[in-house]
């Protein structure tokens, strides 16, 4: 029902959304729609790491979608990684948001995910490339952070951190990522405006 291909630098993902539609009786929720995310990476069979991405994306989206409007249905999100140039999960979440907009699924707010890396010397880098991400993972004392913001109040919907970081640094990273989220939201506006101007 809706799809999107998003590239953020080198990172490219394709996302397709179907729904709200038929749901398997085992996954059926009586009072709201269930969000089913299937994520496939470029190479290899579906593994445990993919499950983690799926759950992160699902939790971010289910807060955005007005699921109470469509009980006993499912919104299916299929994401395929085309190329990973860094910041993959963030690109997936952003692509999902655009695909949901394209499908016309009723949403409470828009979501934007920002990836950032805090290095051992204290520098905070937003939207890291693959090399910067790898460096952060290997270096002792650095961390990778992922935040999902919502469009109304710029509050944090979901987050995931790996690596040592002090409370002060975490706050600093959140503030920096918040200002980056503004850019992503204005990008969404641009894309949707362009799409509708063509249709008219």
């Amino acid at each position, binding site marked *: 029902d809706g799809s999107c291909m998003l590239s953020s630098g080198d990172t490219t993902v394709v996302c397709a959304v179907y729904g709200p539609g038929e749901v398997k009786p085992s996954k059926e929720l009586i009072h709201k729609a269930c969000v089913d995310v299937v994520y496939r990476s470029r190479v290899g069979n579906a593994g445990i790491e993919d499950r983690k991405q799926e759950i992160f994306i699902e939790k971010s989206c289910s807060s955005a979608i007005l699921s109470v409007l469509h009980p006993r249905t499912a919104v299916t999100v299929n994401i395929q990684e085309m190329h990973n140039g860094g910041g993959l999960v963030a690109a997936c979440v952003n692509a999902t948001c655009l695909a949901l907009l394209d499908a016309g699924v009723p949403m409470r707010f828009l979501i934007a995910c920002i990836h950032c890396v805090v290095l051992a010397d204290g520098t905070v880098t937003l939207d890291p490339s693959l090399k910067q991400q790898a460096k952060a993972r290997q270096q002792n004392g650095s961390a990778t952070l992922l935040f999902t913001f919502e469009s109304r109040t710029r509050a*944090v919907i979901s987050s995931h951190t790996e690596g040592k970081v002090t409370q002060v640094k975490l706050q600093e990273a959140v503030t920096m990522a918040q200002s980056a989220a503004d850019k992503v939201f204005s990008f969404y506006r641009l894309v949707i405006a362009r799409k509708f101007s063509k249709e008219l």
Partner: protein
Amino acid sequence: MSLEFQALLPEEYLIKHIETGTRPDGRKLTDRRPVSIAGDNIKSADGSAIVKQGNTTVICGIKAELAKPTTEQPDQGFIVPNIILTPMCHPNIKLGPPSATAQELSTFLKDVVHASGCLNLTDLCPVPNRVAWVLYIDVVCLDHDGNLRDAAIAALIAALNSLRLPQVTFDEELEQISVSKSKSKLKILCNPVCCSYSVFHLESSEITSEENTLLADPTYAEEEVANSEISFVILEKGEICVTHQTGDRPI
């Protein structure tokens, strides 16, 4: 009367409790359940621990095996954590392959071990390029009454602390691996602790001025009705090494 109310309207039941500043089991909003940890219980395992946090019971066993290290990382051993949610731990858990929640918890354990740096993977490789230890860490949930993350991390760290590995030498000429009888403890660099909270969104609250109320160490009933959850894994010096927040409501 209150049991019927809890069965019919679980969310209302909990919110009515929270508004008075206590929870159904009598704890205050920020009180955690008493924790008891016992290490080195399973003699057939190389390392083990059992953790009881209120009613939540989790047991962790570590089995060490030898393997050849990868060519990309020839001086590092392997850690394979796995959480098993048995059907006996809760009526909602069914028999079958690991569910998405179980798989996600397993990756959470792996992330904590790697991010906290509690274990040096090079310590797990006695002979680089030839022989490395693989630690199969099995965390089995015996009773699920909420807050599996905290209990699982505690069990994992306690089991790692009780782990004893023998010395391994490799004879280049004979191409033979020899394992000593004596065992020594593995060096654990730090002990991460996980703190999880359930977040409730209250429309109007007399107790708290903010909209969101945090409940420390939630039980299964509280977790089910919660709007979202947030977990922090903290090291001794106060550094946060893993955070995990899943939303329904923004914080």
